[in-house]
């Protein structure tokens, strides 16, 4: 599967490294090349400098042939915008997007984005641990 990941922070880098190790064709995008230091030393995919909210950068990342797109930058709005571009303009079959703000996550889920909120998920986990 060809996967484009936007944002090479801790999550993006780890996901890129894992998916690459599992034999997928991975391209990871970030606006800072310093972020790519987080990739596994044996990462065999493509690390590309570029802004995933721009169509040109997405094209260079091969979005037109991608099977999946994952938006995991620090900015909720950037993730939302890039995910919508990939879903509605490039018709990428699987688009996943991180939105920290639970309310925004809820809204975009109802609008058909596959969005998850780490805030909600972690709160839930901590709650279960505390009430255990």
């Amino acid at each position, binding site marked *: 599967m060809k996967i484009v990941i936007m944002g090479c922070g801790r999550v993006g880098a780890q996901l890129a490294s894992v998916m690459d190790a599992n034999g997928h064709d991975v391209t990871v995008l970030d606006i800072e090349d310093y972020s790519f230091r987080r990739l596994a030393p044996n990462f065999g995919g493509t690390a590309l400098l570029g802004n995933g909210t721009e169509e040109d950068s997405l094209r260079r990342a091969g979005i037109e042939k991608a099977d999946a797109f994952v938006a995991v930058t620090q900015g909720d709005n950037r993730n*939302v915008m890039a995910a919508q571009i990939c879903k509605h303009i490039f018709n990428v079959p699987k688009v996943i997007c991180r939105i920290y703000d639970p309310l925004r996550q809820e809204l975009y889920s109802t*609008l058909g984005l596959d969005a998850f909120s780490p805030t909600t998920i972690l709160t839930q986990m901590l709650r279960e641990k505390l009430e255990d």
Partner: protein
Amino acid sequence: MYIVIIGGGQVGYYLAKALLDEGHEVLVVERDARRVEFINNELGSVCIRGDGCETATLAEVGTERADLLIAVTARDEGNLVACQVAKHRFNAPRTIARLSNPSNEAIFKKLGIDVTVSSTNIILENIKQEVPTHSLTHLLYLRDKGMEVVDIKIQPGSSTIGKTIKELSLPPDTILSLVISKERKPKVPTATTVLQAGDQIIAVTPAELEEALRASLSGG
């Protein structure tokens, strides 16, 4: 009208000022506390501190009764989200987003934003009008019809000089509505109007055929 403005930078501030002068009810949402204080000192209590992309903020400023929401922060993605939240959560009847990257225009339209204003494009078009070598300028885009009103100058040396209008092969659904000669004489062109160097032509054309129109008038 009740108008919510997201972003209290230079654009947001002057926009709020102009809309208040026109008698509208205006509320500005701005993240930076110092900027909020400045706007409230200058314009009266019309600015609150908050993130215009957050549902809670938009609820607080009464977006559900707003006639219009205008997002003019410096970030395109923030403007997109503010407009979408206003539209889908608060049923804002009309949303306008400022764009910095002109190529986002088509994307925003597809994602349901009613109107986009690209300051970069406006500045570019104004500059192009002043650059004499550029033969085609956009005057107006008729959004719902997808038609452009353009201004084309017949450059010296163009192979269409001396030809009549009917000799040109214009793209379909295109009308040359006005020809203004070098001597500042405007006239409505007919089939037998002869093109002269320095003529300025105001034409209506489908947006996608604009390049074909430029080519047929310049002979290039």
